[in-house]
């Protein structure tokens, strides 16, 4: 896997031992925090800077971070929390792992600044269970920061106190949903909560809580150090900054690439070494497995930012780009994705619990030569009846791949049903 550094997140990558506190400090790390604490910068100024940066949530929804921060009640008398969502389990996404592995202190500094701004005295970083070595590495990095006086009581003599703790998942995709994640920190099954109330008013342990993605929080030190305007100018209007793109699948060099939002997809593909074995690009899932698939000809005209991908009929999501070449059978690809959502549905809402299994079984029988002529209409109906009818977005996430595949590759499904076999010969998948 290859890593391409950039100015914001992977700014220590060119140095030996990029993960160490001293390395991070040598690139200006923790200077933003020191300045804020020394000058006692008012919280509203920090929020204004983040708004100027046009930083949008990097976990998938793309919600403006500054606006989200402004939802936290200022005058609340009790505890408040900042929570980092590092429960990265959307197939195709593997960027937060590399942030925590190579630049954990950018995240830690970002969380301390967020805690200061939002009036939180404690923060939790929820880490995907399957990357347990990363959890152990973060435990070490937090200790390093504590020993250096950046965490704990009366940080750098400022009177501000903040503690940060890592919490690990243990195999449940649904905990990437923010309220399921809160339930999980509380020591329960990770089943999403009804919203409202939103976490900003009733979050962890019932206290006001802001939940941000790892990459979002790791972008904060740069914004406060260099200014929101500079961050904005790295990207394009309404899509500020650089972004990590995780490129997986049929490319020569899979990996994470930190590039400006708005970079043409064709350039990203080139950075990833192009299509494996010189084969032809067939399709791309541009934003993690729940984003609708886009055919090559549409994708090659896209730039990698929230607005361009949305206009093409999909979503940038978490920036997970799954590349598929001409040997891929879309029925088989969808069968595996549908199984994933069926397996990971928490079972709380009927449309999702029943619908994900239904969709999987129908796609499964089409793949195995037992499809019926009415199956595609049935899939359309089931997907439409899940979407928008569940407590959380997992239902939508399960419906969108089905809808995307049927929109662009319906003929492959029809061929499977009619001929009991694949349209794509000698398929890799």
């Amino acid at each position, binding site marked *: *896997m290859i890593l391409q550094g950039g100015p914001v997140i992977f700014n220590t990558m060119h140095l030996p031992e990029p993960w160490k506190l001293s390395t991070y400090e040598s690139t200006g790390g923790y200077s933003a925090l020191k300045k804020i604490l020394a000058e006692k910068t008012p919280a509203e100024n920090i929020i204004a800077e983040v708004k100027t940066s046009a930083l949008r949530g990097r976990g998938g929804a793309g919600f403006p971070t500054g606006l989200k921060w402004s939802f936290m009640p200022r005058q609340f008398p009790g*505890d408040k929390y900042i929570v980092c969502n590092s429960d*990265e*389990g*959307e*197939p*195709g*996404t*593997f960027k*937060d*792992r590399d942030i925590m592995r190579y630049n954990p202190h950018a995240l830690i500094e970002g969380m301390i600044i967020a805690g200061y701004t939002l009036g939180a005295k404690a923060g*939790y970083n929820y880490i*995907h*269970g*399957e*990357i*347990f*070595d990363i959890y152990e590495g973060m435990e070490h990095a937090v200790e390093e920061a504590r020993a250096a006086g950046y965490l704990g009581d009366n940080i750098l003599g400022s009177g501000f106190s903040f503690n940060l*703790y890592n*919490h*690990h*998942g*243990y*195999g*449940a*995709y649904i905990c990437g949903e923010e309220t399921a994640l809160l339930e*999980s*920190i*509380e*020591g*329960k*099954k*990770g089943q999403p909560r009804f919203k409202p109330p939103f976490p900003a008013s009733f979050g962890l*342990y019932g206290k006001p809580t802001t939940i941000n993605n790892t990459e979002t929080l790791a972008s904060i030190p740069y914004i406060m150090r260099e200014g929101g305007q500079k961050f904005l100018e790295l990207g394009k209007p309404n899509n500020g900054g650089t972004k990590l793109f*995780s*490129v*997986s*699948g*049929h490319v020569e060099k*899979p*990996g*994470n690439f930190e590039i400006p939002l708005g970079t043409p997809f064709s350039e990203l593909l080139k950075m990833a070494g192009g299509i494996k074995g010189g084969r032809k690009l067939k399709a791309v*899932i541009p934003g993690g*497995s729940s984003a609708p698939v886009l055919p090559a000809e549409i994708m090659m005209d896209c730039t990698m930012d929230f607005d361009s991908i949305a206009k093409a009929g999909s979503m940038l999501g978490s920036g*997970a780009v*799954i*590349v*598929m070449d001409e040997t*891929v059978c879309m029925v088989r*690809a969808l069968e*595996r*994705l549908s199984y*994933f959502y069926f*397996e*990971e549905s*928490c079972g709380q809402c009927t449309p999702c619990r029943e619908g994900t299994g239904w969709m999987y079984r129908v796609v499964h029988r089409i793949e195995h030569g037992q499809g019926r002529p009415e199956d595609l209409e049935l899939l359309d109906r089931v997907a439409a009846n899940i979407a928008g009818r569940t407590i959380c977005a997992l239902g939508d996430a399960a419906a969108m791949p089905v809808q995307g595949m049927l929109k662009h590759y319906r003929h492959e499904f029809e061929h499977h049903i009619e001929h009991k076999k694949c349209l794509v010969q000698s398929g*890799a*998948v």
Partner: protein
Amino acid sequence: MLSAESLALIDKEIAKYPAEQRQSAVMSALRIAQVEKGWLSNELMDFVAHYLGMQPIAVYEVATFYNMYNTKPVGKHKICVCTNLPCKLMGADEIADRLKKKLGVEFGETTEDKQFTLVEGECMGACGDAPLLLVNNHRMESFLNEEKVNALLEELKNK
């Protein structure tokens, strides 16, 4: 029921949360218990429940909801192969077939000598390193190919 070392580790986790929120440490406590004992028997979960001041049923709920907990005995080495789409594109099915053939088991089964359990996993959040697997939840093996799988099995057999 658990060693002093395990209890000390659990106490360290409890200290991360507000004093009245000991339950928050249940995921870590079950992980630590599982590392020591191999799997989570009802008696072990009852012990964790008592230790954290939880109802046993609340602990069973957690243990059965998250799929990295072993609520049944497993082999000495649990091998979990991701077969999700990005891994599949990179040859995860061939890796899984290789493991099944070498071990003589299907997904969800344990070898007769109780050395290996093979399971199918979901996305581990490391798709750029595909294909990959986990050994006993905490050790990730990446960029798998036939030689790597053979070498891994040889190494584990002698452990």
